[in-house]
């Protein structure tokens, strides 16, 4: 068994905690309780007969008042960038966070989750945003913590990337 640290980054209320809850405990809650500091979960996955213990660091969402504490990123083997397309400005935050992460921990596997896909009729992604997402050259998944759509593959894909790295 090997252990890996991964982080979830994104603006506040995009659904980072919800995604982890869905993935680890298979539950979803409508109630919003903002994360303060960091919350850690773990999940054991098996990828190509290799057992991986994923230590999942759920970081507090970033906003104008509360900046991400980059020290939490230290030692991470990969990260998930979460955006909420029903609130397009969360994507700006997402790009900004990606740059921050790259600067601090270098080029490590990353994956982008466009969350709340169950509300895709409320998504409002501008063309510019789509282009910028393309430019990141990272895998993009449309996830939904509510329905569980693509949540499994979000974490498995990241783990696979980390192992092959």
């Amino acid at each position, binding site marked *: 068994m090997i*252990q890996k640290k991964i982080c979830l980054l994104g603006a506040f209320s995009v659904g980072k905690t919800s995604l982890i809850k869905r993935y680890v405990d298979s539950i979803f809650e409508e109630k919003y309780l903002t994360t303060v500091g960091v919350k850690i979960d773990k999940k054991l996955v098996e990828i190509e007969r290799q057992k991986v213990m994923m230590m999942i*660091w759920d970081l507090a969402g970033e906003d104008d008042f509360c900046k991400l504490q980059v*020290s939490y990123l230290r030692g991470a083997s990969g990260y998930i960038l979460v955006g909420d397309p029903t609130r397009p400005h969360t994507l700006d935050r997402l790009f900004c966070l990606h740059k921050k992460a790259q600067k601090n921990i270098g080029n490590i596997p990353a994956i982008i989750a466009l969350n709340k896909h169950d509300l895709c009729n409320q998504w409002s992604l501008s063309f510019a945003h789509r282009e910028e997402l393309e430019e990141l050259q990272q895998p993009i998944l449309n996830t939904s913590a509510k329905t569980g759509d693509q949540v499994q593959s979000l974490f498995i894909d990241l783990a696979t990337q980390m192992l092959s790295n």
Partner: protein
Amino acid sequence: MESSAREASIQNQPFVDSNDSSRLGGGAGSTAELQSLRQLLLGADYQELLALKQRCENPNQYSVAIAQVVSEAIAIRAQKDDSIAEALGPTIEGAIDLSIKSNPKALADSLYPVMGPAIRKSIVETISGMLDGFNQAVEQSISPRAIGWRFDAWRSGKTYAEIVFLKTLVYRVEQVFLIHRETGLVLQHLESNDVISNDPDMVSAMLTAIQDFIADSFHTSADDKLSTLQLGDLCVLIEQGPAAVIASVVRGNVRADYRLRLSEVLEHCHQQYGTEFQQYQGDSSVFVKLPDLLRPCLVSVKHEERDDPNQRRKLPWISIVSIVLVVLCLGYWWYQDLQQKNHWQQWVSQLNSIPGVMVVQVEQTASGTLIKGMKDPLAQLPEPFVAVAGAGYEWTHFYATDEALQLQRIKALLPAEEGVALTFGDDSDSNSDGVLSVSGEASVEWLRQFEQAPIAAFGVRTVDFTNLKVQESNQSLVDRYLSDVSAVSIDFEVGDASIKDTQEPKLFYMATRIQQLQQILNSDRQVFKLRITGTTDGRGSDTENRRLGLARADNAARYLIEQGVVLNDFDTHFLLSEQESEAPQIRRIIVEAWVENKQLDGIRARLSESRVLSRNVDGLPTSEQESQL
């Protein structure tokens, strides 16, 4: 410039002789001849010489040649003298200096396993030197726990500091984590036997996150790291290494040298796996030796084990003695308290037993005990005894109907009389309620005043005189007897002077009284006088009546004499009746009796009884006074 050009050329073509020779020769024809001569003379050796020469001249080849012997050469030279160290010293210093300036961490990391023990050693020495000072410091602490320790020290004969050490060193390490510093992943986790540990992965990740959180939140300097987390008697000790962190979960009071052990173990881990830690990719399976390395951290210390077993079996006589003392003290206190209560009860019941006193309340006030109640003004409080001396009193006055007090009031009404005892009521006899007993001997005067006193107002229903003797004074007896005698009158039949049988007892009574009187009288100074006057009614002639009256008086006198009355001065008269009445009341004799003092002999004055009395009281009267009378 030239040398560098040559170097470049050599590098490209290292062993070209023709090129070289063309440079050595001056370009003349003799050069070729000389060369062939050399070859003839030296043969194959010439080529070797050339090669050797070239090697010496070419720095690159020369370095390679020297490199093969340089360490041996240094070793040989170092055996001879110190010149190498002297020569190298400044260079090495310079090199270290440069290294620290460019990247201090590299040197610090490589020195870490060396520096740790050295620093600790010096610290241990410093601490042991400071122990005496510490001893003084703890000796000044006076918490209840410290007092307990001091007592233990005194009991066991150890120094106080030793006891403090023994008592504070009880701890047990429950878990040990070795955490990868960079990722927060757990490298190794150990737990003591019966400890249930929750998810070491999460704990170590969270510990790392907490450290980051604290470091980020409170803007500490980069070198300051969290070293202790304390929750009640649970404590997490964290020791930071360059690549790994050791965290030890301890319950109890951990000893200071345990931290040293932690850092030692951490150093050993770094020595063993320093590089592996740095290249750690999440695979902990390579660290097979870690459990054994970490095991020394998993200790537990119980202070009971350090106790001398012989000492424990000793009788805890100090405890026994102190318990006995406490019990004795409590007993004494209890006894005192009981005594005190008894005193008060005793005093209150004593007060209540006094007639006219009613204690209503006993109050404990700040200034002492206050007794409240009702009291008759006449009631006399007894002297309080010592235990109740400090009491205060608050009385409301009232008139008590207690017989003793009523008796006091009755006595206050009466003149003082010796020999008379008054008792009012008797507690033991309910029949005597309201009965005033007068006993002893009382004078008639006193008795008269007693009869006039309003004793009924004080609850007297009956007066019991059974035990009273009335003492009369001579004067009063004389007084009374005289009037008794004077009060006698004897009736006669019409025309008859003889004493009727019915009248005899009166005369007999008169005779006894006269005899009694004469006994009382002081015969030296006083003399009894009697005049008997016989009277008649208006019938008959005056002569007849004169004879009849006289006969009546004589008959009475004779009767008295017959009864043994001795009278030296006897007077019998008759009195003619001035009335014509025939009423039987006037057929009688009239008796007049009095006492005369002897000095007044010859003076026949009729004195009233009161005058006789008062004269006796006042003393002898003068003759002028008598004559005036």
